[in-house]
């Protein structure tokens, strides 16, 4: 009995330490987050998100933005994003587009095409996850969970660190 408990404990420790090692293995500050989609049919793309960050929100504004690079092993479409309502009331995927004479505006996008093997960047001046009506300022050092919704891969949850600049 004792032995079996010990064995279980050792096995559990081994699993924990392996998980720990895997988590530490990431080469950047913002850990790569790969989360298998709930739906596991063979056609489900594997989505990998890296370099994710959300900007520290300046004082007196209730808008925020999150950026990241999305990789997939199969074609897919990013349909939307959401965060818990305790963080922001509304979340949309936006694109900053440049018009005549360098004037810029943001617009909501219906979808972002994800091409297999080609990184899709959400970065300043382009696509971004826009957080509207923030409940509290996004503070440097904190982390928010952003759920990305893909047409095929379904929901993918990404832990996004808040920082002043891109990692």
């Amino acid at each position: 009995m004792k032995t079996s408990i010990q064995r279980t404990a050792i096995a559990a420790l081994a699993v924990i330490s392996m998980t720990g090692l895997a988590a530490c293995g990431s080469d950047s500050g913002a850990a790569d987050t790969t989360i298998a989609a709930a739906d596991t049919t063979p056609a489900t793309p594997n989505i990998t998100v890296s370099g994710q960050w959300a900007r520290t929100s300046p004082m007196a504004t209730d808008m925020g933005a999150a950026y990241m690079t999305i990789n997939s092993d199969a074609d897919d479409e990013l349909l939307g994003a959401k965060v818990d309502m305790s963080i922001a009331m509304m979340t949309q995927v936006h694109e900053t587009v440049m018009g005549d004479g360098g004037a810029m505006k943001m617009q909501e996008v219906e979808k972002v095409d994800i091409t297999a093997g080609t990184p899709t960047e959400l970065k300043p001046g382009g696509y971004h996850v826009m957080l509207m009506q923030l409940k509290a300022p996004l503070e440097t050092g904190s982390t928010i969970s952003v759920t990305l919704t893909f047409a095929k891969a379904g929901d993918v949850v990404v832990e996004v660190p808040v920082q002043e600049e891109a990692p």
Partner: protein
Amino acid sequence: MSGMKISVKCRAVIASLVFIVSACGGESTSELRGYQAPREKTSAGISVTDAVTNAPFELKAADGELLVVYFGYTHCPDICPTTLVAVKNAKKKIGALASNVDLAMITVDPNRDTSEILPKYLSSFTDKFHALIPANQEELRTAEKAFDATSSVTEVDGKIEVVHGGTCYIVDSTGKVVDEWPFGMDAESMAHDLKILLQQTREANT
């Protein structure tokens, strides 16, 4: 004879230093990386209401300083904070010289950017700023015209859509626009230009 030796050594050292400097520069170090418009622009004599003092603020730098003029709005989640963080970091890169760099942000969305909000917003990026809120459309358009900037605020399906330029205009103490930084210019390049322009300012004052 020994003097000769030293001078040869010195020359070698100088030559290698020159080599290192030119290798690092990769381009002329005295050339601005920003944009200089073919048309000479000036904002001398043009003022926008300062939200802190409630008095008109003329769009020109104090003597010996540079003024970074930016048209933006606080509900902007992408372009404005990206640019203002770059300006903040550029100032960090030039050390003590940064005290000669002033920032004036003119809101293009004066209905939402009140005198409560705009100064607080700017204080997130710098402690040397002017939060400018146009008293009326004319004040905004006159200021924009000086820089060839444009903006619009429209309501589409109950949502407010703001269109604005993302350029920083660098103005000297005469009101002349001496450099323009398009959106996406990095802090390193901004710092590079600030150093050159502040040097020119110092030379002009002596």
